[in-house]
């Protein structure tokens, strides 16, 4: 499996800032990071690349569309069957 994240220290080296600054960026929401434990964070590589590319993602106005039917969630999934009661089993 290819590596999928950077540590705050690695990001700090790439940005030429301190690890503390990277943690501040994570805490203020500027840089997406996953808190694994109290002291361990992971920055997904695609998130860091997006951060480096800069600029906010373009906003959009979602269309409201009339549809005949919404595709059911969990389609193709085997739904739980009703458990047979003891009476059903005896019959």
């Amino acid at each position: 499996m290819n590596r999928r994240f950077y540590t705050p220290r690695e990001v700090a080296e790439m940005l030429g800032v301190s690890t503390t600054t990277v943690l501040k960026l994570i805490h203020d929401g500027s840089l997406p990071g996953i808190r694994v434990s109290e002291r361990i964070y992971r920055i997904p590589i695609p998130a860091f690349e997006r951060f480096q590319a800069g600029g906010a993602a373009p906003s959009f106005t979602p269309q409201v569309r009339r549809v005949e039917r919404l595709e059911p969630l969990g389609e193709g999934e085997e739904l739980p069957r009703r458990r047979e009661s003891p009476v059903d089993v005896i019959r």
Partner: protein
Amino acid sequence: MSLDLAGLGRYLVGLTTYVERWGVEIGHLPSLDRDPDDVIGFVIEGRLPATTGPGAEIILRERWSPDAGRWERSEYAYELIDHELASRRAFHQHDSEAFIRRFRVVVHEHCEGVLGSPDRLHYAGLPVLDGYDGARRLLAIWVDPGGISCEGLTCLEA
């Protein structure tokens, strides 16, 4: 969480922007799809790029049911399909009546250590607060060096 139609639109835009900030490449901009019963649904589909290989898909689906001129999230399906590792993880709330009747749970999860051949059908889970929480949980699983593991999950069919 109860939203009017404008609020639901803002929620969809916010969630789409949020997953893009994590580096997820969105295939096409999502829309709010409204059925004849006024249930509104949306799908955000995106791809986590990989240096090599097919990467992974993240799919966030929600259903919002009408309630006195507003809408409440009534169902969700948040999915991670990791093509590189051929595995899948998902958090679901749908067909609640069937799940309550059979297992006395409202939500369930899926885990496929090998894609297409789940060891078990449904696992117990905790409710996912909203789409942001769902996306965050899936991304945390995606970056885990151990990959998707089903160990420690409680199977409902056991």
